[in-house]
């Protein structure tokens, strides 16, 4: 396999392909990543999201925003508001801000209501998102997964049929050779709690062990309270696409698998902070006994 590594949207990427990427495909990958970052990054001042933080208004989003916003609509509803892209403001209050101050500026702050604050519509010209107040968007719950899908599309368009797109260990696999993936122990990154086989699906994980900047301060927040979660330590989700897998990996911190399985098709492993775990039937045998 040929591998291309780069850093983007706050994480390390690696693209592995059976045949090397030609310059045109590399440029197309870079374009997709740059365009996504320019729309959604809350860490750069020239992004669409940065303008949303300055004032209420209407903002034009790319076509790919439609599945992303639909997913967030569903997750908001199923988790009773715990998953909410407006959680960016809550992260800032705890110190995870664009300048990486890591200094809490106040007590945990609930995010603004998603359905009361944001509406969106789509027509032939694109997607228009309208906000009722200035908001700090953070699409971290599913955005990285969607970018994995968009990069995978670029590879498919260029004719690649065997590849692994790896964005900081969120993975999408295609091709004949399955991938053996270890599930990292959330309390000891030198260890794994199991190994699964990934084949023609996406695997996304979420855990609270990295992106910690203080005692009990990490990036998985309940948007209803603005506080970091403390009952689930790590989740892994397998789904047909990475955006769904990523979003569900976050949602499983707040919702029961059965509540999500009515709307989504997926497999999962979930580990709690007390060391217990649960998993979907297809995942039996994945965890070490």
């Amino acid at each position, binding site marked *: 396999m040929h591998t291309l590594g780069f850093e983007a949207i706050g994480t390390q990427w690696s693209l592995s392909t059976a045949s090397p990427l030609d310059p045109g495909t590399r440029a197309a990958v870079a374009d997709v990543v740059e365009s996504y970052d320019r729309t959604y990054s809350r860490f750069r001042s020239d992004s669409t999201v940065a303008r949303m933080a300055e004032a209420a208004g209407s903002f034009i989003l790319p076509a790919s925003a439609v599945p992303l916003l639909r997913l967030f609509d569903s997750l908001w509803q199923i988790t009773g508001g715990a998953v909410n892209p407006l959680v960016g403001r809550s992260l800032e209050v705890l110190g995870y801000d664009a300048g990486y101050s890591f200094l809490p500026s106040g007590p945990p702050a609930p995010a603004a209501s998603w359905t009361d604050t944001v509406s969106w519509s789509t027509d032939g010209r694109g997607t228009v998102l309208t906000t009722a107040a200035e908001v700090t968007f953070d699409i971290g719950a599913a955005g990285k997964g969607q970018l994995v899908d968009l990069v995978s599309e670029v590879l498919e368009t260029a004719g690649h049929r065997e590849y692994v797109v790896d964005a900081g260990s969120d993975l999408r696999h295609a091709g004949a050779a399955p991938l053996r993936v270890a599930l990292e122990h959330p309390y000891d990154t030198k260890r*794994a709690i199991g190994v699964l086989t990934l084949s023609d699906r996406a695997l996304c994980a979420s855990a609270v062990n990295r992106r910690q900047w203080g005692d009990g301060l990490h990036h998985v927040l309940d948007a209803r309270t603005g506080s970091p979660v403390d009952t689930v330590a790590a989740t892994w989700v397998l789904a047909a696409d990475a955006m769904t897998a990523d979003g569900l990996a976050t949602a499983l911190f707040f919702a029961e698998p059965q509540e999500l399985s009515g709307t989504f098709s997926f497999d999962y492993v979930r580990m709690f902070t007390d060391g217990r775990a649960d998993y979907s039937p297809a995942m039996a045998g994945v965890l070490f006994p």
Partner: protein
Amino acid sequence: MNRASKSLLSAAAGLSLLSAAGCAAGEETAGAGQAPAEPPASSPASAPGSAAGSGSYADGEYSGTGSYIPPSGTSEDVDVTLRLEGGVVAELEVETSQKNPTSKQYQREFTSNVKEQVVGKNLDELDVDKVAGSSLTSEGFNRALDAIRSEAAS
């Protein structure tokens, strides 16, 4: 199975199941895990006729439905099936109606697949292609943390 039986059992007993395991009405204070003084009065699905054995229960399979009322006020049904061998519970299945989210939370703890502590193995002993866990963090995040740490240390 034995181990799972035990943990299911103690969880079920903690809920004070009514008429679990086919116990006659009036014995509701006996949890599913405790041997009542009398043989079950009803519904031994496949029990041999005699009450012989080490205890006063006849070996065999029993089932019953109980209910309990959690703080939410919504009654939850619990179906229990168990098999007695030599007077002890050899198998136990508990199914719950899972009506309200909080009960669901507790119920999941004894109906889910895994109750053990999750075991870790060293990554370098595993022949794997990738590791999936928490996202690796960006240089920006790590640099900022390093700067804060060194400032705090000086």
